[in-house]
């Protein structure tokens, strides 16, 4: 219901019953606050958001109230600048600063600190206490986060995020009164794969990004570039912070339909691979250095000899397209298994033909029932898992609403909701990280997961089914926005088929999300490769051009070995040394995502532009440029927009990719460095480049490389890293760029949705059941490591668990394997020791291994 309120003398429309703080912020009135957060709601702890509220025209006195705890009432008058309210806010800061160490000079947060901003905003200046300050112990929290508890202002945001929002257990608030302390019971890496968000949720410098701290630059001394996370198919939006040519920090970049306020740790710490020791800096031929021209000549010869191209779900759309252009559509293959090519293509077909709508991550949160079929979502699409946790709270919010408790009153909702949970069914082979949020945590062997889904579909059609499937079907049928989720985590096609059947039964109210394995799996599929590695093998022998792809990560090593052995020459383009580049005759360095602007198509079919955060080196340009040089595909001065324009003419379904961001020359350049950036003309180029020889604008994105250019509200969302309002320097101010708190960005959420609905349902896939001796493979996943770029990131590598080999005790006994035994997998010693796990289905072996395996696993004891 709309209400009219008078806000600082101006009448504005508001929503009756909504919290006053959000209402003020949305109307451009920056009421100071700490404990409130757009994703966490109101709890009234910090008392900073005090304003004077008059109940109506007859109220001449008014009251000082905490705006975050006050519901909007029609006719209300609000004075934020009221003297008494302002004085109180300044005193709140004075109290908070009593024990704060005032160590801004050495604090990572300094310069982008919400506490600094609020201190200045309230006007508190002079310290009136000369008492000694309280001190706290700090902890080593692992490779991701620093911990300096003396900076804590006890806003409780961290514990609310970690426990209440993200479902973590190993972090809490301890102690009482002025000794409350936030951390773990004992030092150690935080368990949650979302722990990195603490660096942003904390309004001070208690938690900060540890890799940043170790490669520190002041916040205003780093350039900021909008990029896309390339570590899974969710496609979260990130900001890359750079100085002097090196990455310094990765930060969440708000996207209203996807990540909104939070990233997963894989996304936050994964991009550190771009500065990893394994970067390839110069071309190599048969292990020796080769001149760039020499390398190009070899590559051209290979193309002339009828090379085939192996594309990559890790590489950008433009790079894959350039490869396809060079070798021709008939010689363009995907660097994944044939099975995965078919599965991903089928996922796209299902998304396009299903009556269900394609779920954004934000849609996850508003689902009132959900079914996850087979996917270890926390590991394969982590941000989606975090969103699903919020969906679980829907029923609680509904019951609280019946009791008159508004949904923003966070703690009251948690109580009034009586612990109700929306129905969420998780059908997985092993206990799942989301089990605690699920109403139906169900276990099925990998080959039975889809059967369960088909039973749900049958039940929805009114046919008989097993009781658990009936229960899940009933929950989905009753829901107004049921959510269906599957992926390729089990390397199986049938879960998605089952979802398609369920979606067909539920109709248009359903929302569906299918997560392919990688950031650009869908982009690669939309380029219609001729097949996967097995097909490429059949097309051999021919020289191979492998694009940004460690094939050993994505396909059965035997198939990869066969392919590489048969090829007369393998040319690998990559930024990182991998097992594949080690096997390649010619290795050509290319830019990483930090130096190459490119487009990635996420699980929704949303094309998103990730921008280069620094200039590529001369020896490692963007992969599409290297390919263009080899194949003479584009003019020498071609820009990314030219590639996309050609793509649009060649493949109509991908035409939208060009609109994922504005054309580079559509407007004057956008500034990349803050206005107060130091050493603007000198620091990274001094002595290396003659003045005026480098373009000041990235030709591929239209972003300037410097502090010159457009900034602020002038910048379209695809090129913007945040609101950047004077006086608000921290991520806590992200709300200022949102149309409504937690809603779409002003100017629209960036990206271009590529998928269009078709009527043709397409051909369903079935999964083969491998015959013979041996165990069937159950792929194990971890949130901290999924691909070669993850392995190469030092912080992620430090956090990733050891590889695992899980066996049911009965199978182990049968094979004569004991817990802790060294096993042979397919005759090769396995890095992981045997772990016995009664949750494992019998006849299966849980193994952290590259995907794409199709044959049975033979296990034996190591001699």
């Amino acid at each position: 219901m709309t209400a009219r309120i008078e806000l600082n003398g101006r009448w504005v429309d508001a929503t009756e019953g909504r919290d006053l703080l959000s209402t003020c912020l949305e109307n451009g009135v920056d009421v100071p606050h700490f404990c409130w957060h757009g994703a966490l709601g109101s709890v009234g702890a910090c008392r900073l958001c005090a304003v004077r509220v008059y109940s109506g025209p007859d109220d001449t006195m008014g009251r000082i109230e905490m705006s975050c705890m006050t519901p909007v009432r029609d006719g209300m008058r609000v004075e934020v600048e009221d003297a008494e309210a302002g004085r109180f806010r300044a005193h709140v800061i004075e109290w908070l600063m009593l024990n704060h160490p005032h160590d801004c000079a050495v604090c990572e947060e300094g310069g982008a600190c919400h506490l600094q901003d609020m201190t200045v905003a309230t006007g508190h200046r002079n310290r009136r206490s000369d008492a000694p300050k309280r001190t706290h112990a700090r902890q080593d929290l692992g490779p991701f986060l620093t911990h300096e508890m003396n900076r804590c202002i006890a806003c409780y945001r961290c514990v609310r995020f970690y426990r209440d929002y993200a479902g973590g257990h190993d972090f809490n608030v301890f102690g009482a009164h002025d000794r409350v302390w936030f951390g773990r019971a004992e030092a150690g890496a935080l368990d949650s794969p979302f722990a990195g968000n603490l660096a942003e949720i904390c309004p001070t410098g208690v938690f900060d990004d540890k890799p940043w701290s170790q490669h520190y630059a002041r916040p205003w001394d780093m350039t900021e570039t909008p990029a896309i996370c390339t570590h899974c198919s969710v496609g979260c939006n990130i900001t890359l912070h750079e100085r002097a040519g090196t990455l310094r920090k990765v930060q969440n970049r708000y996207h209203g339909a996807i990540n909104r306020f939070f990233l997963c740790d894989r996304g936050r710490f994964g991009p550190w691979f771009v500065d990893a020791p394994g970067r390839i800096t110069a071309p190599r031929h048969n292990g020796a250095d080769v001149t760039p021209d020499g390398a190009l000549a070899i590559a051209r010869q290979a193309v002339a000899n009828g090379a085939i191209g192996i594309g990559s779900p890790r590489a950008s759309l433009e790079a894959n397209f350039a490869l396809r252009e060079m070798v021709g559509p008939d010689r363009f293959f995907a660097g994944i298994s044939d099975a995965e090519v078919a599965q991903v293509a089928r996922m796209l077909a299902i998304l396009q033909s299903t009556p269900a709508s394609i779920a954004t991550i934000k849609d996850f949160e508003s689902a009132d029932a959900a079914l996850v079929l087979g996917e270890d979502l926390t590991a394969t699409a982590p941000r989606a898992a975090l969103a699903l946790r919020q969906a679980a709270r829907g029923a609680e919010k509904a019951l609280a609403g019946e009791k008159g408790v508004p949904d923003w009153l966070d703690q009251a909702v948690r109580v009034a909701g009586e612990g109700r949970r929306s129905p969420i069914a998780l059908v997985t082979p092993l206990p799942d990280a989301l089990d605690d949020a699920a109403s139906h945590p169900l276990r099925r062997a990998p080959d039975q997961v889809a059967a369960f889904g088909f039973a749900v579909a049958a039940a929805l059609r009114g046919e008989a089914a097993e009781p658990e499937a009936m229960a899940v079907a009933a929950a989905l049928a009753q829901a107004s926005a049921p959510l269906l989720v599957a992926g390729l985590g089990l390397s199986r096609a049938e879960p998605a088929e089952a979802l398609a059947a369920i979606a067909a039964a539920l109709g248009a109210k359903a929302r569906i999300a299918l997560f392919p394995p990688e950031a650009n799996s869908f982009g690669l599929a939309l380029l219609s490769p001729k097949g996967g590695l097995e097909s490429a093998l059949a097309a051999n022998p021919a020289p191979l051009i492998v694009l940004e792809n460690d094939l050993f990560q994505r396909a059965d090593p035997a198939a990869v070995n066969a392919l590489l052995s048969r090829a007369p020459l393998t040319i690998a383009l990559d930024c990182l040394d991998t097992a594949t580049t080690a096997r390649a005759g010619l290795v050509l360095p290319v830019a990483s995502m930090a130096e190459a602007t490119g487009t990635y198509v996420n699980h929704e079919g949303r094309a998103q532009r990730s921008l280069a955060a620094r200039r590529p080196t001369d020896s490692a340009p963007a992969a599409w440029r290297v390919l263009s040089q080899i194949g003479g595909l584009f003019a020498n001065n071609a820009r990314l927009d030219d590639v996309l324009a050609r793509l649009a003419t060649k493949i109509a379904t991908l035409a939208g990719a060009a609109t994922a961001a504005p054309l580079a020359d559509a407007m004057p350049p956008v500034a990349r460095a803050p206005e107060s950036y130091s050493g603007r003309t000198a620091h990274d180029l001094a002595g290396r480049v003659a003045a005026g020889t480098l373009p000041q604008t990235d030709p591929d994105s239209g972003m300037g490389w410097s502090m010159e250019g457009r900034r602020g509200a002038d910048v379209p969302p695809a090129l913007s890293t945040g609101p950047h309002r004077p006086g608000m320097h921290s991520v806590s101010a992200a709300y200022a760029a949102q149309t409504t708190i937690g809603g779409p960005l002003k100017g629209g959420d960036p990206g271009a949705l590529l998928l269009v609905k078709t009527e043709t349902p397409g051909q369903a896939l079935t999964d083969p059941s491998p015959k013979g001796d041996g165990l069937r493979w159950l792929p194990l996943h971890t949130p901290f490591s999924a691909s070669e770029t993850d392995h190469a990131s030092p912080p992620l590598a430090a956090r990733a668990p050891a590889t695992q080999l899980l066996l049911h005790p009965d199978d182990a006994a049968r094979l004569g394997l004991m817990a802790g035994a060294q096993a042979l997998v397919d005759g090769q010693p396995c890095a992981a020791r045997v772990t016995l796990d009664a949750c494992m289905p019998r006849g299966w072996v849980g193994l952290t291994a590259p995907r794409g395996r199709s044959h049975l696993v033979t296990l034996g004891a190591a001699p």
Partner: protein
Amino acid sequence: MSDTLPLTGHARADRTPHSLAEWRAIGGYRAVERALQMTPLELVNLVDAANLNGRGGAGFQAAKKWRFMPPVGTSPGIGSNYLIVNGDEMEPGAFKDRFLLEAMPHQVVEGAIIAAFATHSAQAIILIRDDYRAGITAIRRAIAEAEAANLLGTNILGSGFNLHMRVHPSAGRYIVGEETALISALEGGRAIPRKRPPFPAQSGLWGRPTTVNNVETISLVPHIVANGAQWFRALSRTEEGGTKLYGVSGMVKTPQLIEAPMGSTARELIDRCGGVSGTGVLRCFQPGGGATPFLEPADLDTPMDFGHMAKAHSMLGTGALIVLDTGTCPVAVTARHIAFYARESCGWCTPCREGLPWAARILTALEDGTAKPRDIEILRMTAAEAGPRGRTFCDLMGGAMGPLASLLARFGDLVEAHLDGGCPIRRGQL
């Protein structure tokens, strides 16, 4: 059990609890029998007519609170209503509930049964301060006896009413006495208050409708049912019904617990304690415990009920009368109080968590003679900025600011005098 001292009149001289048989022999549990023949609404109306104000500190009308409790099946959600009896009693100066729990356990259980019936509660929890071991033992035994006699359990006395009652020893924090923090602690969470609204009657323990009443409030209920509203009101000297348990401590000759008509005066109570001790001359008193503002001799004859104390700019609070003679420095007393509240702050909201330790430090510095003039300004600022209702998340801070604000208002000169080398009383200069 009609008498003028309903709460204490039947206590045994040695203050040991009654057995169920003994309690019944003096008329115990007849009120339960009578109440179970009434409807919950009739009970609420009866308590309303008696004008029973809650004895936990705020003086909120018990009947008004009970009326908010929805009958079973009429509120959203699933599960029982809850009655919680608040025996956390950690207010400095208060020791009244201790007596009721230790010496009169069946009175508490009886009152809780009736209150539970009136509030449609099938679950009752008596939360008791952990240090009150004797009280915990006594109430547990009384509950066991009542269960054995079908005064608790299912179909109580054939009425169809079911009630399960249990004791929960508190973990020993002052804030657990605050009703919403109490509920949070009962759920296994940190003892941190919760926002009201939603009030406990809307969303209390486990989100269910909940009534929290003080031990003394509950103990009065059986007597109202047994003797009627008129009788109850007649016990009082003022509009507010009943007798009151006043606990007198500090500089009096014989500190003690006194049941007296509601609205008795401080002068009477001090006289019954043998008068002021120490110098024998009264400087000031706190009428209702550590968190109530100081009053001076001019208010010795003001009736001590909720209304009159509020009008006198103090509070009846728990009725724990703390007496200061002229040899006792109110700055020192306030310093001790504030240090206690600083320690007991739950740590949730800024003004209390950070403001109280600062104030406590300054008060100690005043006593020690190390304070500076600016410090007194800070005390005034703290009281003015953090004292008003709504500035902090709960009323702990507002309560703590009561004595501080009144100290500054009434004894400003004395406070200033502390700037010259510490407490002038201790230095023999006053």
